């Protein structure tokens, strides 16, 4: 699942896949503004078939937070 998350983020940000890890910060390391973040959330929802609430998404700080949320919501 982590590979898919990385692929979606890398596609959107044009950042090298290898530079994205669980500790990567979405705002400061990847340069995601709130609008860009929401576009990625939509891609994640489509890819994993899970609903991510907007206010929940705004609380994600790292890629690891996204992974943990998806795990918690039954995506493996």
């Amino acid at each position, binding site marked *: 699942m982590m590979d898919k998350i990385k692929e979606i983020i890398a596609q959107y940000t044009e950042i090298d896949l290898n530079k994205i890890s669980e500790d990567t910060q979405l705002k400061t390391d990847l*340069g995601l*503004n709130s*609008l860009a973040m929401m576009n990625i959330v*939509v891609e994640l929802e489509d890819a994993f078939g899970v609903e991510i609430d907007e206010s929940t998404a705004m609380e994600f700080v790292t890629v690891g937070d996204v992974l943990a949320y998806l795990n918690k919501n039954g995506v493996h």
Partner: protein
Amino acid sequence: MRNRRDCSKYRKEIISAFRITTVKQLLSVVERFHLGKVAFRESKGTRVIEHTFDDLVRDVKAFGTMLCRMNMQGSHIGILGENAYFWVVAYLAVTGIGVAVPLDKELTLEDLCALSEQGNVEHLICSAKFMDTALHIRDTKPSVQSVIAWGCAGEMPEKTFAFEELAASGNRLINEQGDTAFMDYPVQPEDLAVIQFTSGTTGANKGVELRHRNICANTYSSMEVFPSGNQSISLLPMNHSFEFNCHILPAVYLGVNVGINAGLKRLTRDFQTYKPDFAFVVPLFLNEFYASIWMNARKGRKEAKLKTALFVSRFLRFLGIDIRDRLFAHIKETFGGQLNVFVCGGAPINERVAKCLDDMGFDIMHGYGITECSPLVAVNLKGRGTLQSVGNAVPGVTIRIDKTNSVGIGEVMVKGDNVTSGYYHDEESNRVSFEDGWFKTGDFGYVNRKGELFISGRKKNLIILDNGKNVSPEEIEGKIESACDYIRDIVVYDAVKKVKNKKIHNIAAAVSVRPDSELSMLDIEEIQKRVAEDIRKINHSLAFYKRIVSLYVTLEEFPKNATHKVLRNSAEVRRGTIAL
């Protein structure tokens, strides 16, 4: 509507047919002109639900009838929730029998309790999402007697009612018993319609009293400058007067179909679904759209192509040829394909961003308003004047500049039917805010020979230096923002230092760098160094006393209020700085 001329002719016919003096009379306009048409569209999961103007009139009357049956006439009723069709129904029904108090959903529970008390709220209408918040307010504030919620499933708690059930009951009362309590309830132009809280970037929220006369005057002024088109999208919170009074109410009056955005997450999809002709935004949206357009161009390796297209567009427009629609069709597609106009207000505009979007085919109407003026004061109509100006006063509104300095800058004063009669239960603010029938906006500015208004800054943000010189932070912020494309937020402020028991005033700047800028790829020390270099260069173009002497640079976003204005006095902004 076939074209702009048809649209304008049709609108003139509607506007001249009535002269409404209460918000409630809007229902008569709708019944006369718009029945059968779609009024609002909103997304529920993957479905798009359409609400016609017939639904709107029926639901307002039905819900209003039940409010009367529950003896809420004359009550102050808070509205709390995300943008929704029921938000509009609640507002129109409440203002038909009492006073609406729109509440900002972004506020903390503590602030919402305080504002409910300040606005003397007796009942709360909320969305399912804010049910727990509303119940907490009701249980904490004895003055709040009941809660009505829309979108709830299952059994409702005690003294809590389902909006939809009340509307259904109200409808039965009207149809089966001929109940006319709502429509018969008298509303006068001087009656209080809304207590609108200011968003307050530097101080406490103030409750502005907006009477039916004020709101109707603003509706007519807004319609005079309303963009042409049959479809729009609602992006800003409806509790904000700019969105509701300048967009939603005129749209209902003119029969415009409004698509309600269900949050930032659905922004791109909603643009595609609703295909709006125009949108009301704050500058932050323009900045984000601008950043996204360039990011997508970089992603598709089309940055150079876009730059060339912009150059061609500017050159041809200089010659009087406008082919922006063809040159930037692919960009317009991401906004639904029909979007032509952004109406922007609420904060100073970034001229570089606005100019670029304008070159791409999005006309920018930059306006100036203040909650106390319901809120519209002036608008820079597309294609006229400079983007630095907020344009001429709108019809029905008069402005003058008070106590001008040597270069003609003074406080902007406003007069007109749109101006509030005062603040709710706040005698001190009422005493200092009016002078000889003019409202003192607290904004500084000047008017040029064409009557165009230029805002130079907020009076309360003004920095008064030890030498008596006054510095408007917004003026310096604008210069830096235009020169540095990596800036997300900037605040210039008065950094007071105590030296031997004496206060020394220095000008400081706090800069938040866009995380998607090239600069953000560097480490923070290098970023600070580069920003400091740029500020030093800009300092040379400023009068000596206006120069920035200390700086704070961060990649973090500064805290903002619900209308996305930076909270200028927050600790996250006013931190320790590096000397320049």
